[in-house]
């Protein structure tokens, strides 16, 4: 038997083995829909030497100005801290700032916490805050968070432990976003000394969090070591090791076998397998993430006509998508913003429109628009196991209503480029996204459809909408702001610059050894690993 023949047989054997060892079974019943959403897990019973956490990707950098995705922030939230802190129940509380006072609509004053030390040993001052925040305004740095600072006029030191932010126009969201990456404070001296290497495996970090950056082995793992000089509650674990496993099945098996103790962002396909494994517990927590289809160009192409977008939205089988791909911890939606974004202004939350599917009405809309037979191209990627199913379902819906639809699979880096490079979006009409918010306020999402915003990928533009965004941003009362935002939501849900699909819970897994982690999406900016300790 030739080597190749043996290889072919090995493929079969492997397939059978993977099937045998990886089978879900789903022996344990799922929790009832909508039930069991909590922000936390049981309190630890003691400290632990170390634990391992698995992520789907290695952070390309840990520089906070470029921390714009899950892998970076999942690690960084334990090492670096912000002026404010996003709590596990998605509220804001003082972080590195003891106090924040909105002196007037254009002036925000932070009193910096005393006695906070960086991992290098130096004490944090207002100079560090000013240097850290001003990096976002430096074009040469190229901060991914520059839009959070679009209304900022200046950030200056106004006292030994006081920093004042002045705005060109009122910006109520800015204070909330200071609990996320934009509000991160690092050592000004280290920034200067390490230059462009800051945040890389070579340059390291110098922050104030409960863990300091240990060994970063590129392509393999990042280790964090407990920082004993931390100003807040001491971390319960001595070390945390992050490993990176892009393949969903391998990641799931790492959790089942105990090679990794836990992980966030558990794919729907893995939930039954993990639940039936007996290796730990699957938790679902509050999330600010929704699955949407981004329309690349609202001014040209088949989808430029709002009737075609509405028709496609009417024809998509959202219930089917939830069943087939997104799983039990998701719910179909007709609005692009997550329902949990309204949790701090619940009185103003608009009623969710009832999800319906009406293929006949959709066909009529396409006919009315004269778009029968016109083509749309849907980009997809293996970046998430759910994307191919979403794209196939959208293609089926498009075909059903008389459009010609092509699914184009792009490499993960080309998919990432869709969010930053207009050239990469050429020839693409739609692409799926799991979009998360970094502040518990729906305006963070609906504000990005303002004319000229960086994330306004399709070029949505309406002066009345822009005016309403301005009004909402200038409204410091949370509930009143939410009422204005509800009008924005209504407009977006009708005109569909994005086509909403589903609202997603935050799904995480904790192995039997550990407990204490928050279950909400706060893990992106809250030092969650410090709360993890021994389960028994």
């Amino acid at each position, binding site marked *: 038997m030739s080597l*190749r023949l043996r290889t*072919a047989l090995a493929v079969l054997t492997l397939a059978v083995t993977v099937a045998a060892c990886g089978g879900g079974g789903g022996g344990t019943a799922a929790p009832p829909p909508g039930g069991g959403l909590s922000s936390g897990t049981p309190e630890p019973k003691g400290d632990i030497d170390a634990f391992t956490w698995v992520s789907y990707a290695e952070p390309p950098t840990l520089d906070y100005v470029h921390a714009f995705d899950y892998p970076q922030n999942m690690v960084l939230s334990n090492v670096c801290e912000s002026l404010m802190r996003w709590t596990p129940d998605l509220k804001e509380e003082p972080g590195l700032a003891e106090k924040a006072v909105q002196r007037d609509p254009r002036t925000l004053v932070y009193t910096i916490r005393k006695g906070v030390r960086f991992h290098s040993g130096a004490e944090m001052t207002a100079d560090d805050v000013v240097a850290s925040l001003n990096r976002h305004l430096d074009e040469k740095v190229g901060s991914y968070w520059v839009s959070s600072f679009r209304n900022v006029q200046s950030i200056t030191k106004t006292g030994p432990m006081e920093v004042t932010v002045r705005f060109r126009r009122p910006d109520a969201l800015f204070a909330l976003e200071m609990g996320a990456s934009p509000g991160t404070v690092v050592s000004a001296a280290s920034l200067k000394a390490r230059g462009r290497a800051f945040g890389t495996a070579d340059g390291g970090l110098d922050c104030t969090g409960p863990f300091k950056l240990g060994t970063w082995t590129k392509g393999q793992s990042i280790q964090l070591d407990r920082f004993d000089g931390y100003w807040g509650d001491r971390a319960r674990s001595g070390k945390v090791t992050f490993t990176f496993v892009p393949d969903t099945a391998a990641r799931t098996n790492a959790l089942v076998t105990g090679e990794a103790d836990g992980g966030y962002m558990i794919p729907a396909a893995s939930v039954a397998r993990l639940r039936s494994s007996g290796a730990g517990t699957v938790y679902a927590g509050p999330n600010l993430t929704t699955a949407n289809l981004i329309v690349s160009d609202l001014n040209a192409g088949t989808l430029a006509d709002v009737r075609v977008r509405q028709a496609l939205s009417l024809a998509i089988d959202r219930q089917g998508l939830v069943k087939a791909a997104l799983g039990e911890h998701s719910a179909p939606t007709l609005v692009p913003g997550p329902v949990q974004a309204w949790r701090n202004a619940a009185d103003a939350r608009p009623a969710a429109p009832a999800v319906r599917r009406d293929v006949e009405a959709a066909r009529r809309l396409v006919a009315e628009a004269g778009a029968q037979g016109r083509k749309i191209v849907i980009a997809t990627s293996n970046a998430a196991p759910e994307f191919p199913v979403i794209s196939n379902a959208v293609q089926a819906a498009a075909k059903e209503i008389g459009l010609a639809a092509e699914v184009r699979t792009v490499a993960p880096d080309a998919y990432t480029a869709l969010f930053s490079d207009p050239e990469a979006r050429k020839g693409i009409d739609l692409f799926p996204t799991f979009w998360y918010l970094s502040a518990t306020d729906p305006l963070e999402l609906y504000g990005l459809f303002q004319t000229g915003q960086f994330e306004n990928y399709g070029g949505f533009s309406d002066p009345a909408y822009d005016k309403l965004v301005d009004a909402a941003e200038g409204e410091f009362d949370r509930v009143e702001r939410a009422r204005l935002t509800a009008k924005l939501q209504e407009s977006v849900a009708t005109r569909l610059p994005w086509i909403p699909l589903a609202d997603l819970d935050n799904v995480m897994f904790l192995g039997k050894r550990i407990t204490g982690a928050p279950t909400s999406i706060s893990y992106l900016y809250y030092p969650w690993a410090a709360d993890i300790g021994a389960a028994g």
Partner: protein
Amino acid sequence: METFAVRPGLRRLGGRGRGGGLLRAALAVIALLVLAAALAPLIAPADPDAVDLSAALAGPGGDHLLGADASGRDLLSRVIYGARTGLLGPLGVVAISTVLGVLVGLTAAWHGGWVDTALSRSMELVFAFPGLLLAILVVAMYGPGQIGPMITLAVAYTPFVGRLVRGVARGEMGRPYIAAYRALGFGGLAICLRHLLPNIAPVILAQSTINFGYALLDLAGLAFLGLGVQPPAADWGAMINEGQSAVLQGALGPILVPGLAIVLSVIAFNIVGESLADRVSRR
């Protein structure tokens, strides 16, 4: 005129004797594959791209004889349509590599001397690079798809054919009929194409058949890695790739069905190719 025609027809290949049954089964599998590829629109029970989310990961039976994938697409229809890329890709690899290999091998054998040395060293150079690695390099430069990996693998397979052709042709050139044709005033090109090549064709056919199986496996591997034929096209390698997460949900069909198609095809082509090679070598 002496000839060395060895033309083992398929009828003779499937004859009685040890291993004959296996060979007939392999030929039957290949025939089925060709039929499936040619008649896919007629014999597939459903549109291979038809999505039915309510049937996602349905087991075998009912509307889906072999089950359905995560998008509710019929696995039987997809595996039937998959025979098209499954056969066309390797066919392209084998066709190109055979033409190039014969050209290089015959040129080296006929001219000898520095031409032979230069071509042989060139083939060794290409030999030094694993074909899959070359294909991955090309995909990194030009993006995934069917054509890039196909051409790259064809180049990588060329030395296999070239070295074989050179060796066999050099053996043939020592035979009296070549000298006779030369004495009669035939040109080198005419002797090579009209007399030498037909005589070594069975050897080339045997090697190309074996190469076909190898190429099928390589191309399926590249598609599995997301570097070859891209989803949602019904391609066996891409189907296994897409079916991975289904395994976690306890659904084995999405990887086993295309996996079996690949394994059976590779085994069939290997059996036929090696049988051809055995028969040629016995002569």
